[in-house]
């Protein structure tokens, strides 16, 4: 492909990917009057008031970000703690059980989990788990386990078996082998799996929507939906846009920081499948 064509295509790709977000950024910095006036009036009408409105709301917007961060981090830790031993055991087994568990995990990984929300909600009500950020980590970990186990077991399977055998002969226990030999070598896979789980938990909507009703406990996704459905913020969308920008910035940072690991994680998933 010639350089000129390629540059044009890359520009098109970036415009398509970033355009909507850039438009949100633009909108968030404009006064309602400037937005209603339509295009043309670039000279005046710039403001930070939209951010003020969102951050000064009750509860303030950063609260949702904090809630999502807490849920994301705890769910990630819980998922990894459950998935690592399971993936290890699965990667060391042959035969029917491995086939069954592997197939079941793949089916669960592609299962549209939104179907499960009602039963999970009932469990939450019966066990008194509603309106608890900690409890939200349980379904999140459960829902992300299939993908996490599949990714991690592929990473375990890629390690040369004699590394672990050598450690066995040196007298290492299972925990010592994991702690000193296997997990350090799987660092990239663990990080990328963790990131995928974190992204899911940060973004999850239907379960958070039904489990959490107290507004100071809302995570980002249901909070955004609530903003969209409420009349607290004025139309047009200045304040909405400020909320979308604030909700996107942490993820943009995460993406730029861990671009390589996320790509590697998805890639492994593809090879595995």
């Amino acid at each position, binding site marked *: 492909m010639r350089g000129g064509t390629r540059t044009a295509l890359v520009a098109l790709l970036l415009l398509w990917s970033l355009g909507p977000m850039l438009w949100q950024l633009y909108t968030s910095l404009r006064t309602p009057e400037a937005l209603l006036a*339509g295009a043309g009036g670039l000279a005046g009408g710039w403001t930070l008031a939209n951010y003020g409105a969102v951050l000064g709301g009750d509860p303030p917007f950063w609260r949702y970000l904090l809630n999502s961060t807490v849920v994301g981090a705890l769910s990630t830790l819980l998922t990894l703690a459950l998935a690592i031993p399971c993936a290890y055991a699965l990667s060391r087994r042959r035969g029917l059980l491995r086939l069954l568990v592997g197939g079941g995990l793949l089916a669960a990984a592609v299962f549209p989990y939104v179907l499960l929300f009602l039963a999970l909600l009932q469990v939450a009500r019966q066990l008194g788990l509603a309106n608890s950020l900690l409890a939200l980590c349980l379904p999140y970990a459960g829902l992300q386990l299939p993908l996490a186990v599949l990714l991690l077991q592929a990473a375990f399977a890629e390690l040369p078996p004699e590394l672990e055998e050598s450690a066995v002969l040196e007298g290492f226990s299972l925990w010592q082998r994991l702690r000193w030999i296997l997990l350090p070598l799987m660092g990239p896979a663990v990080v990328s799996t963790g990131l995928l789980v974190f992204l899911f938990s940060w973004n999850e909507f239907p379960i958070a929507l039904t489990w959490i009703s107290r507004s100071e406990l809302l995570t980002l996704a249901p909070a955004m939906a609530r903003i*969209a459905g409420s009349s607290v913020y004025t139309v047009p969308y200045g304040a909405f846009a400020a909320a979308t920008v604030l909700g996107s910035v942490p993820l943009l940072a995460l*993406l730029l920081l861990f671009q390589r690991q996320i790509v590697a994680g998805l890639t492994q998933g593809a090879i595995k499948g």
Partner: protein
Amino acid sequence: MSSLLLMAPALLLLLAVFVWPLLDYAWLSLQAQSVFTGLETVPVGAANWQRLLADGRFWQDAGQTLRFALVSVALELVAGLAIALLLHQRWRGRGTVRSLALLPWALPTTVMALGWRWIFNDPHGPLNGVVQSLGLATVPFLASPDLAWVATVVADVWKTTPFVALLLLAGLQMIPADLYEAFALEGGTPWQGLRRITLPLLRPYIFIAALFRLAQALGVFDLIAVLTGGGPASSTESLAVYAYLNAMRFLDFGYSATVMLGMFLLLLLGAAALLLWRRQAEVGA
């Protein structure tokens, strides 16, 4: 045996999260539990299932969901392949562009759905700004049943194409470069190379991407709930949204469980048909 012990905690949580709900629905779908029963469960036999079979909205939503999924995933595969081919070539700044192009996929669906709602806004959204500057009347993108579902497809393609592109990029990187060199030495053009080498070798990746995306698109919920709320006149409503409305708005839990189980059975049928078709295609090949 100790390996079973290591797997046990994860498998137990999986059973609780995936298997228990389906069993629960199976039971609940044979009960009435709604405002009319005072939210108590009352056994009603197959009444919910009879209602489902005769429920025009369920079948309409099933058709709409299928249309949404097929059109979105087809567009995503084509656009994803094009982007993957572009990102597979070597050029300066490729890494940065790759992570920027990934941004739509990483954002919460509710966040971006809200963004698209503004873009499609009538009359103040930027899209209608363009329309107006051309001297035309504004278009009610989200208020017209013919256009609203297209808007949901556009937003979905925008959000999930990066994921497809990344999977296909991984596949492209698995193809050894010397295959193309050998093909070029035999006089093959790049276009022929794409058709004779790239696509056949990429097939497993395309299959996986299509499988993941189809499953997700058939379960679409967040995007529609925030972008259109299923409207106008439930013309963009998906099965998941309908099931949600039954439970959370109409408080008809028995029927909601029936809708979800019905949707699950339809998915199962679809998956079985797909597997059969693929096996037959393999045998035929």
